[in-house]
């Protein structure tokens, strides 16, 4: 299966969605619970496979048996758990009548523990694979790992049930992992093993539920309420993505004027430089129809990443979030940002970066945790990215963190500053304490520093920002620049692959 999937995708055909549609996985071995009526049906199914029916009839019967899967009882059991069957999921995900199934006749070949018996064999066992369309665009739906295709087609995993052991690396290798709240779990070892090895008491939900992975571990990128919400959101999300690394980012019909002024942006940044505001207010104001598909909204909230459209064209948005930890960069936010930037660069999605960053988070926990190494990932990702890069400094852009956030020094194509921007080594207070250590009239020095550096001019004079723009014109400027940059071609020197600071 893996090879099959890889082969398909490496032809560069299409986009793939990897779905952990292991619907029946938690019905262990099936035999113990298989009720009589069902085994009757299945025995019947096995019977004809050795009868003298014509091949055509055998195909039809097999196909019907495959569609029923484990039988109505098992479908009901799945429903009772608040989940849909694999076939129902595929049907909801794809455009009506667009699904073309592969390998419907595959059966498992396990011969241990009575699994070889007829009533434990189902055509199309465990997984449903094939191709279909989402809003008319081709997509592959399948299961299991597909390592080689990373970077070739966008891959999304939707976890809709328990997934444990080595199987968890299948979603881990895809670009995005989404989970269903309360019904899906991901862990290397389950609560029983955890108990026996470390004597920790932990529930499945605490150990590997959607909340854990979207807020604590950062393994999953979004969680949805239930199967239906997840699949419908996946359809929506798919529209942001190009079909492969050779396709441009999609452009959909846009009714939001590209030259729309956004008056609210002129007042969004507070006067006190220490006061927080919500970066999402800026993002939603700027993008088409205020529609922003946020990735990892509950993890490392001091950075905001996600997809939106500008004049119909998909863009990736990265922004510091002043509302959380002043928007500083730390280990988790650097990794979150870096991974997102890498995805955008791999799939021709322009990156818009909104900067309000007071610096990297200081402290032993960060240094011991390797902030240098992890911060370097974000630096590396932005530096290596060859897609169009537009950067808007809304307020603070201090020190090394300024550099990292898609600055001119990292080959930013267009870098703007709002009038409230402060591009400096650090804030006035900290700087004065160092420069004028031991001197008395620090308030005066601070005022001088603010006058000199707490504004966009030093950066503009040096060409580190291309222009100081009126905030309400930001959308208009970005849309215009994206059009200009649509034909951007940039190549990095040949290498087998770069060595990202992992």
């Amino acid at each position, binding site marked *: 299966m893996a090879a099959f999937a890889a082969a398909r995708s490496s032809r560069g055909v299409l986009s793939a969605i990897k779905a952990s549609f292991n619907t029946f996985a938690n019905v262990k071995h099936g035999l113990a619970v298989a009720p009589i009526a069902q085994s009757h049906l299945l025995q019947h199914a096995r019977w004809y496979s050795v009868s003298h029916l014509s091949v055509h009839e055998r195909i039809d019967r097999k196909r019907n048996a495959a569609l029923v899967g484990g039988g109505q009882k098992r479908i009901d059991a799945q429903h009772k758990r608040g989940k849909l069957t694999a076939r129902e999921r595929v049907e909801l995900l794809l455009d009506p009548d667009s699904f073309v199934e592969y390998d419907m006749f595959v059966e498992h070949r396990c011969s241990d523990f009575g699994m070889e018996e007829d009533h434990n064999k189902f055509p199309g066992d465990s997984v449903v694979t094939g191709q279909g*369309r989402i809003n008319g665009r081709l997509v592959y739906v399948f299961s299991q790992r597909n390592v080689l295709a990373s970077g070739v087609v966008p891959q999304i995993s939707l976890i809709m049930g328990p997934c444990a052991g080595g199987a968890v690396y299948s979603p881990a290798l895809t670009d995005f992992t989404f989970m269903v709240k309360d019904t899906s779990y991901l862990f290397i070892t389950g609560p029983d093993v955890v108990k026996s090895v470390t004597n920790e008491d932990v529930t499945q939900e605490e150990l590997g539920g959607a909340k854990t992975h979207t807020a604590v571990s950062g393994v999953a990128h979004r969680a949805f309420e239930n199967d239906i919400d997840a699949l*419908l959101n996946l359809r929506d999300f798919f529209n942001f993505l190009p079909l492969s690394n050779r396709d441009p980012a999609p452009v959909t019909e846009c009714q939001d004027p590209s030259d729309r002024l956004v*008056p*609210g*942006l002129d007042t969004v940044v507070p006067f006190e430089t220490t006061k927080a505001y919500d970066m999402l207010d800026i993002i939603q104001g700027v993008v088409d*129809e205020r529609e922003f598909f946020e990735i990892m909204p509950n993890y490392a909230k001091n950075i905001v990443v996600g997809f939106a459209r500008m004049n119909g064209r998909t863009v990736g948005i990265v922004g510091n979030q002043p509302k959380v930890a002043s928007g500083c960069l730390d280990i988790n936010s650097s990794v979150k940002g870096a991974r997102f930037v890498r995805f955008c660069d791999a799939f021709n999605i322009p990156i818009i970066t909104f900067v309000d960053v007071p610096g990297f988070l200081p402290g032993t926990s960060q240094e011991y945790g390797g902030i240098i190494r992890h911060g370097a990932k974000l630096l590396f990702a932005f530096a290596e990215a060859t897609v169009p890069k537009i950067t808007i400094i809304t307020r603070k852009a201090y020190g090394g963190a300024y550099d990292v956030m898609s600055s001119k020094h990292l080959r930013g194509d267009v870098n703007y500053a709002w009038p409230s921007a402060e591009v400096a080594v650090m804030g006035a207070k900290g700087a004065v304490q160092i420069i004028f250590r031991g001197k008395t009239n620090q308030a005066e020095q601070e005022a001088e520093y603010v006058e000199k550096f707490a504004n966009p001019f030093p950066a503009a004079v040096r060409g580190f920002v291309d222009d100081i723009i009126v905030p309400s014109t930001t959308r208009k400027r970005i849309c215009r620049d994206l059009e200009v940059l649509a034909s951007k071609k940039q190549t990095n020197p040949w290498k087998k692959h770069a060595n990202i600071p992992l």
Partner: protein
Amino acid sequence: MAAYMITPTLQRVLLSAKHVSFQSRYCVVAGRARYSVVYDASEKVMKTCRKMGIKTVAVHSDVDANAVHVKMADEAVCVGPAPTNRSYLNMDAIMDAIRITGAQAVHPGYGFLSENKEFAKRLAAEDVVFVGPDTHAIHAMGDKIESKLLAKAAKVNVIPGFDGVVENVEDAVKIAGQIGYPVMIKASAGGGGKGMRIAWNDDETREGFRLSSQEAASSFGDDRLLIEKFVDNPRHIEIQVLADKHGNALWLNERECSIQRRNQKVVEEAPSTFLDPDTRRAMGEQAVQLAKAVKYSSAGTVEFLVDSKKNFYFLEMNTRLQVEHPITECITGLDLVQQMIRIAKGFPLVHRQEDIPINGWAIESRVYAEDPYKSFGLPSIGRLSQYQEPISLPNVRVDSGIQEGSDISIYYDPMISKLVTYGATRAEALQKMEDALDHYVIRGVTHNIPLLREIITNPRFISGDITTNFLPEEYPEGFTGHRLTPEGRRELLATAAALYISAQLRSQRFMGNLRVSTTSQEQSQWELQVELEKKSHLVSLSRSGSSFTVEVDGGSVEVSGEWNLASALLPLSINGNPRVLQCLSRDATGQITLQYLGTQFKLRVLSRLAAKLTGHMPEKVPEDTSSILRSPMPGSVVAVSVKPGDMVAEGQEICVIEAMKMQNSLIAARAAKVKSVHCKAGETVGEGDLLVELE
């Protein structure tokens, strides 16, 4: 927001009037900040000043630096941080602003220092003109006890009550008993519903006395209270007066302000449907008598309570421009601000009483950042992410001091704007108001447009049969939003389904040469299911161009429009009738929120397949709310009356939250033991923040 604008006004006024009696460079206009009441006053004042060739200086708190009135003014001076007592009520800072800018006159707007005699006195001491009445009139009318005595002496009808200050709680109970319940306890200083409570028994008198005196102290710096008879089923009708410094006075007809909640006005109109010419004249003449008795000059308002027999009683006199003054301007054609400035300068009135007409009908809706589903309006805060006023409609006037991006904070009153419509007849003015409310886009804060639109289309309101108890009488269980008729429901369902399909179709249209299936042809028929108010409806659609024919609930609805999914407004033709809806949100899972007839409805549109499978989805258990107390609004905690381990009885006060200067006592929903307390006095809390947990 704004507030004090200083304008180099008077000089020009005077010059243009060819009376250069004193040199003035600026006129300070003092209004109130985000008290829209106030700032809109400042704006209005500035507009008029500009018309008169007067330059203006706005004073503002630091959070209001970007406010509209500040932008409109020729100069602006920051007078302090957000809390009003450190900015807009900070007389020293305002006097400094006047000195710095050389302003020679001050227009105080509607609030803050507009009725503060101390302020007027200090201005007089520095030879700065106060655009308003003389100090003694402010003093006399600002004190409710004294004003009543004066009114009595001027042969104005007054309500039976107690002419004196209430000493303490027991005194209050005694006086209330003498007058007879119900009684009204109110702050001797101030107005606007603050520090005002109705008590129906001794216990309520005690509680009302305590809360009102605290509110009075925090809002006006004066905790004196008085008690009077509460007139049941009254109408609130007020007379606008205009008096000059030469002993002339006019009455400019009435404003009907009976639609109130918690003694604050919501919808006002001029004229009143209730007054006959004789009553109007009698009220007008008494108002003028009072103005003359206190040697009043400038614009002022005499408020009356009117009973069903058209007996009227003097309530109080407001010695400032009222929020609702535009409706008087509409029907009389006078610019009250201009009149005020002329009077301040010393000109005599140019109009005579017989010159004052009633032309047409004007309605004003006060658009508040409030949740109307909670006690007809509890304050809400937030950032106005989208904001469009319906000013493109004819005969619609919007006075506001906010703009897209403005923050509605807990520091000021939650008024967003005054929406005024005008028509030749009342019916026409009401129709305009409906249109204006439908076209008003406010996103980011909860607002009271649902309530306003229900009021102006309420049959009892339309008939004119109203009292100040209109809201609790019409909505005894509280306001619940628009009740859909079967036809309305079909329209709403059809619109949601058509919007959903429009969005679906658009999401299949990719520009450029992308590998999109060429075999699939565009669908023109759909079978959907739409959920609304917990009921599912099967819906069939067929499309031709931008027009949908929708079969739903046994009826057929024709709905067409541009289906611009980026626009805040959704102008449609439904069965041939124009109708403007707003799409407030729309997501990938078919959730759509539409504003229809003012009220927001949540719908969910699903394909038949998704709808069939939805039944299998697990139900999420909502949080048990009977044992937790959350803040119903953003504000600050004034007092916490319980600690962990306490037993509380049902209805017992748990804590007091102050928001927008109103104190709200939060009570236990049931008898229980207090498990934990998550707030303490002085803290700021947001809406929905956990305050106290019960066991």
